[in-house]
């Protein structure tokens, strides 16, 4: 209970009549990294801007550090948190003064500001940049300096809004390392918006999926990528084979195919299988089907196989049997865990 750093209840945001964030409740515990993913326009940025106080909610509440996050408490709570944006923000002054900016707003002696900024810079391995104008930094260096400017104020809670979206992969990796290091060394709680699912998996303890203004699922990366709660989450995290089936008494049937299902599932459900989890054989041990199309996509071969329902398969080129062609009869199978039974919507 005391471990909760941030908590929302029915947090809602509307612009005029348009509700861009439907009532949302979740919480984040101390030391956790929560990644918020979702297609652009789904409400990630709005959610973050509400959480960091740059916008005010239409309804609902936010509690941070156990206190309601409202106008009156904003200053006090803000002093314990930090915000980093997608766009690198550098001020027209030296690198070290950029880093010290946040400190200069607090009643900290100038020498102490400098010392802490230099120390942070040294940690980044950028000491020789100290007196350079910040405008001369590369994109990656700039974003690290922007980040350092926040870290030097020792925040307990960090909001990162697509911090690596404008960076090349190498620079993005540097920033990711800073994120992990900060979290590991100082136990800083971090909420990060990202459109990069691999980054989310790499960084996050938990992931929240926002679709159409609602958090539809929140869970560990394993849960999100291997047990999506709904068909739309599944689609967003890369499931290509999604069928509507009907579940009853421990089995689910769709298009003439019957598979085992948890006994508690009843009625309409979604049946979801990743393309790369489907095993194709020429024997008849699995579900029979006919190859409808076949094409090479880089290191993979992609196929549509008609088994009464059309399945999409992605097979590494190295494992592909080159004698196969369109019209051939094949059979499909998969590990039982590869099949996810989710809610219907």
């Amino acid at each position: 209970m005391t471990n909760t750093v941030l908590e929302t209840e029915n947090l809602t945001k509307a612009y005029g009549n348009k509700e861009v964030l439907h009532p949302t409740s979740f919480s984040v515990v101390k030391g956790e990294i929560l990644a918020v993913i979702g297609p652009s326009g789904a409400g990630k940025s709005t959610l973050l801007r509400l959480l960091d106080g740059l916008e005010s909610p239409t309804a609902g509440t936010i509690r941070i550090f156990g206190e309601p996050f409202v106008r009156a408490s904003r200053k006090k709570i803000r002093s314990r948190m930090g915000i980093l944006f997608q766009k690198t923000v550098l001020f027209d002054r030296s690198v070290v003064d950029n880093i010290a900016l946040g400190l200069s707003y607090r009643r900290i002696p100038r020498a102490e500001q400098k010392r802490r900024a230099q120390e942070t810079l040294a940690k980044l391995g950028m000491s020789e940049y100290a007196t350079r104008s910040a405008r001369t930094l590369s994109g990656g260096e700039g974003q690290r300096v922007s980040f350092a400017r926040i870290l030097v104020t020792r925040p307990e809670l960090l909001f990162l809004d697509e911090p690596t979206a404008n960076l090349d992969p190498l620079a993005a990796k540097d920033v990711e390392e800073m994120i992990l290091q900060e979290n590991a060394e100082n136990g800083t709680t971090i909420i990060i918006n990202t459109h990069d699912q691999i980054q989310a998996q790499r960084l996050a303890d938990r992931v929240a999926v926002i679709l159409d203004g609602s958090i539809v699922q929140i869970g560990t990366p394993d849960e999100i990528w291997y047990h999506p709660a709904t068909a739309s989450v599944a689609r967003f995290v890369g499931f290509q084979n999604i069928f509507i089936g009907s579940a009853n008494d421990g089995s689910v049937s769709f298009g003439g195919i019957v598979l085992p299902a948890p006994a508690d599932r009843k009625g309409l459900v979604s049946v979801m299988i990743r393309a790369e989890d489907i095993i194709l054989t020429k024997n008849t041990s699995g579900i029979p089907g006919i190859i409808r199309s076949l094409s090479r996509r880089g290191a993979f071969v992609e196929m549509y196989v008609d088994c009464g329902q059309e399945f999409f398969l992605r097979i590494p080129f190295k494992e592909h049997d080159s004698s196969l062609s369109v019209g051939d009869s094949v059979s499909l199978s998969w590990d039982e865990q590869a099949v996810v039974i989710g809610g219907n919507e």
Partner: protein
Amino acid sequence: MGEIIDGFIGAIQLIVTLDPEVMDIALRSIQVSTAATLIAALIAIPLGALIYFYDFPGKRGVINLVQTLYALPTVIVGLVVYLLISHSGPLGFLDLLYTTKAMTIAQVILVSPLIIGFTISALTGLDRDMKNTVLGLNAPAYRAMLTLVREAKFAILSAVVLAFGRAIAEVGAVMMVGGNIRHFTRTLTTAISLNTSMGEFSVSIALGIILLGIALIVNLGVNVLQYRGMRVKDD
């Protein structure tokens, strides 16, 4: 034609010999307009920053009004200030009429909207995330504004220089509240107007050349500032 050439030759003589009357007038113009511009900047930059920084109902309307006032007719400023500081006016007891202070006040009123408006657009021209970053660093409001104004300094400074140009080139208001009194409130523009009516074209041309020279320097200043501002953005 002869008149223009004679006037021109006379003008050059007046300038080269640093004619005390001409220098007195030029110096006064520069002093009054410099004081007016600095005072206006001191009032208008913080005001512009406040309008930019805070969201309030009617903000759009306020900005529109400020922009409309860019074109505030100088004679209207002159009239209003005259009515206020005339000895029969509400501020008559301050004894400001026909002083350089009155002229300074009129020019402050004249150029403040310009500086307010340009300060707002200079700040609006900054990246929105810059304001958010400063807010995120939990800056007190005045410190946040100071940081942002400093970021927009080149654009704001060129507005100030432009304001000086408008102040020093203005004739209607300083004529009305200054009275164009020799050795006291006569400026480049009022002197040009008067000397032209008196047919003293040499003096008019000399003063005109000085005024143009000042305008040229002002323009150069704006260009340098805008160039520097642009270079900073490009980096």
